[in-house]
């Protein structure tokens, strides 16, 4: 970066800004310190309803059951970012670019393990910290490592099949949410005896999607097939 010292503001403005920032920090700090002791309303509600949520870990219960709508939107954010990235153009990464032998050997051993770990995290989310996003992130990490060693999917899989995988998470979420409506409830209101199974189903689909989306985001653009160029 040749313009390492290039700042956007001249020196006097920087000093004024420093003063303003210090004032801001003091104000915010004072606000934080002035907060009363923890208000427990929501925490108590979560604990009270945990048994009906289908999972034992309270964070997973909040994410996938009580506030599942937020998680649905969160999956939408990831997909949206990918569509945005794809709309900007082709990936600058070349295929099969000069893989390092040490990295390749390491990844050969690591990648299957990472997939296993992802599977475990997905399963563990029901009773311990874990779940779809964590598992998806590990999956994506293995995907990134594979990309760095120059591996790519065959072109045939890059079109419709890839798009299907990317959509599965959000699609499963919406489908489950809609299917439970006729069972006499609201959108995303899982029947309590099916809640555990439905959550696992959604999380599995989500893990796959999140891993694929994050890996695709790493490429920084569309993968163009020969004809498209």
């Amino acid at each position, binding site marked *: *970066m040749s*313009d390492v010292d*290039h*700042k*956007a*503001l001249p020196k006097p403005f*920087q000093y004024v*800004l*420093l003063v303003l*920032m*210090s004032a*801001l*920090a003091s104000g*915010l*700090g004072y606000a*934080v*310190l002035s*907060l009363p*002791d*923890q208000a*427990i309303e*929501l*925490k108590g509600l*979560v*604990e009270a309803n945990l048994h009906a949520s289908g999972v034992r870990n*309270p*964070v997973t*219960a*909040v*994410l996938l059951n009580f*506030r599942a709508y*937020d*998680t649905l939107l*969160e999956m939408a*954010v*990831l997909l*949206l*970012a*990918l569509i*945005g*990235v794809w709309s*900007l*153009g082709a990936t*600058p990464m070349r295929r099969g670019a000069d893989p390092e032998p040490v990295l390749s050997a390491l990844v050969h051993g690591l990648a299957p393990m990472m997939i296993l770990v992802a599977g475990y995290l997905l399963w563990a989310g029901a009773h311990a910290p874990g779940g779809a*996003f964590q598992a998806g992130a590990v999956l994506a990490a293995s995907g990134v490592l594979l990309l760095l060693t120059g591996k790519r999917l065959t072109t045939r899989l890059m079109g419709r099949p890839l798009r299907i995988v990317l959509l599965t998470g959000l699609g499963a979420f919406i489908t489950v949410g809609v299917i439970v409506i006729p069972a006499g409830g609201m959108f995303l209101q899982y029947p309590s005896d099916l809640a555990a199974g439905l959550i696992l189903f959604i999380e599995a689909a989500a893990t796959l999607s999140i891993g694929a989306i*994050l890996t695709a*985001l790493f490429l*920084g*653009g569309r993968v163009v097939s020969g004809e498209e160029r």
Partner: protein
Amino acid sequence: MTPFTLYALTGIGLFVLGLYSLIVQAHLIRKVIALNIMGSGVFLVLVGLGGPTSNTMPDPVPQAMVLTGIVVAIAATALALTLILRIQAETGRTDLAEHSSQH
């Protein structure tokens, strides 16, 4: 002051530091990093204030909120970085050109 209030104050510090860098730094990648630091600051405030007290478990709701927030931050950062790549390909620069070209 509990350790968790300290986390929250650190979060505030990160937020303000990030804000200063966002305004002052010109290079786009540094601006994106500054935004990420600000985000981490806000997450620290969220989780820090929801820590366990002497007789209760930690509050799961802020943790869920921060998980969501992290994912949102990743998505936004990915879009930002790709945009920066395109800007550099189009203009050869990595900072925002001034408005004068618009008039």
